């Protein structure tokens, strides 16, 4: 059986899962969808959650991170802005464009990814804590990335839901060995303090670091505080239930003392991240940014979170109290915080593939922030952003397409325009909705010989 592949695209609020199911299950799902439309979506979701509870929990954690962590939110807004620019760029130009197109992005905007994968080495010795950038490809001890914080925070979330409790450092160390996991930050902190401290500190440190504009500098500053205080002092002195609330507040205060508050440009998603100066993004600035970006799924979640008071912060701290083990459900107050969109790419053992894009019920009900006679639902908007984001990521070579298009005779094939399109028809290329989507969004199409992208609004002909 082929391995299950999943990833989150929190900028869109989407989780993508590609998995194989037995033929008998596929037949049952198709029969069920045809015979009993009512409640079909719920039954499909239950099936997926029972099959992949840990994986979906992990990806859900990533979606919640973007709704709660200010810096991830700013970066999500920057990414969606890039998606919009990409769509607009197909409209530009005075005449026909020769195909295939090669997409590129200004270097300064490349820093606008959700997080950086470059390593920083943090060294702790008798002189204190120091950091330096690590050359690409070098394998050095203490080499950490923003990715390690985000992933290990989500991994601990997943672990705690899976075992139904807070867990222990030793238990987590064993659990990490069950399959490949991100572990670099855990090993680094455990070496510095203890396994118990490491598992408790990682979520707290991640929340504090991503409330600032430069998470790795913040991580180094927090490590300096931990070293200065001595192993265990900041954790074991406050063994009560709300220890982490206190610790997060403490670390944020210390970061503010060191770096000050982030300026307004730091939450301006119209400028590239290179302009960001280190500082703490205040709750007021975060709130203002959420209000300025109501079209983001993460903003919807953040606005609901503001209405629900302490609910979502509490879920992030103690997920096992809200999400049940083995995919058996969750506290109903979390219904509207479900991943806004889940794309299932299902392969059956006999090779039949299909793609299902499932927007959450909450996003189906929420109205997108557009003026007009007819209300547009958030689910419709998100599906459009997701499709465009996939095209951007694949076009830039940032990720492989979820499915490879088999229709080599299609005039769009090889044009560089539709690589990454999600809804590829299994048999008849004429059923593909990409040509119509391109025509509507850009006013352009591809000539019959597949060589040119031309205007169909009349301007190329005049």
């Amino acid at each position, binding site marked *: 059986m082929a391995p299950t*592949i999943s990833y989150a695209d929190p900028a869109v609020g989407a989780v993508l899962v590609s998995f194989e199911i037995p033929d008998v299950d596929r037949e049952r799902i198709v029969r069920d969808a045809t015979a009993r439309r009512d409640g079909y979506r719920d039954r499909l979701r239950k099936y997926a959650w029972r099959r992949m509870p840990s994986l979906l929990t992990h990806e859900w954690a990533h979606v919640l991170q973007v709704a709660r962590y200010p810096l991830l939110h700013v970066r999500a807004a920057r990414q969606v802005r890039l998606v919009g620019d990409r769509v607009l760029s197909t409209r530009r130009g005075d005449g026909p464009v020769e195909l295939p197109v090669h997409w590129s992005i200004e270097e300064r905007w490349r820093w606008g990814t959700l997080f950086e994968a470059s390593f920083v080495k943090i060294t702790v010795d008798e002189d204190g804590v120091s950091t330096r950038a690590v050359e690409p490809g070098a394998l050095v001890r203490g080499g950490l990335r923003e990715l390690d914080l985000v992933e290990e925070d989500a991994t601990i979330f997943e672990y705690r839901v899976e075992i139904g409790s807070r867990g222990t450092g030793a238990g987590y160390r064993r659990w990490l060995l069950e399959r490949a996991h991100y572990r670099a930050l855990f090993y680094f902190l455990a070496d510095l303090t203890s396994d118990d401290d490491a598992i408790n500190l990682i979520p707290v440190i991640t929340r504090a670091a991503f409330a600032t504009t430069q998470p790795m500098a913040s991580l180094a500053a927090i490590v300096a505080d931990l070293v200065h205080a001595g192993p265990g002092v900041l954790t074991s002195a406050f063994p009560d239930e709300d220890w982490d609330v206190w610790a997060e507040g403490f670390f944020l205060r210390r970061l503010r003392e060191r770096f000050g508050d982030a300026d307004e440009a730091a939450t301006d998603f119209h400028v590239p991240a290179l302009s960001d100066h280190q500082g703490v993004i205040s709750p007021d600035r975060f709130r203002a940014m959420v209000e300025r970006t109501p079209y983001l799924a993460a903003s919807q979640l953040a606005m609901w979170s503001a209405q629900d008071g302490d609910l979502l912060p509490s879920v992030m701290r103690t997920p096992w109290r809200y999400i049940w083990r083995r995919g058996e459900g969750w506290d109903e107050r979390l219904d509207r915080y479900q991943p806004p969109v889940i794309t299932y790419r299902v392969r059956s053992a006999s090779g039949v593939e299909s793609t299902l894009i499932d927007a959450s019920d909450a996003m189906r009900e929420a109205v997108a922030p557009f003026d007009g006679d007819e209300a547009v639902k958030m689910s419709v908007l998100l599906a459009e952003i997701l499709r465009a984001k996939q095209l951007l990521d694949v076009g830039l070579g940032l990720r492989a397409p979820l499915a490879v298009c088999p229709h080599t005779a299609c005039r769009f094939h090889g044009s560089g325009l539709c690589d990454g399109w999600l809804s590829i028809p299994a048999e008849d290329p004429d059923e593909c909705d990409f040509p119509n989507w391109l025509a509507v969004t850009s006013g352009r199409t591809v000539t019959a010989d597949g060589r040119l992208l031309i205007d169909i609004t009349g301007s190329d002909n005049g």
Partner: protein
Amino acid sequence: MADLIIRGESDVLEELLRAIESEVGPQARPETFTSAKDGELREPVTIALIVALGGPALTHAIAGVLKRFMQHREIMDKQANERLAGERAYQLELTRRGSDGHERPVTVAELEGT
């Protein structure tokens, strides 16, 4: 302190890490390295391990794990190759990094003789 850098296939490295954690424990100070691109949130692919060679006893313990692990994998791979012609046998690339940062290839036999 010297380190041993081990490069290989992801699943082989994961299995080796389990053996080191189980037989040597945290004093091996293992660290794993995973490949990733900017902006990717996906399952990790382990590309290398680092373990500490902090003195003769620890080095011997790690060499012992490596030796047993390699013998076991060789038997397993040989059996697999007999069933599946052309299947690639596993490979581990070992590099010793001294406390001065100098790196050189190393063998299990050398580690055993430390």
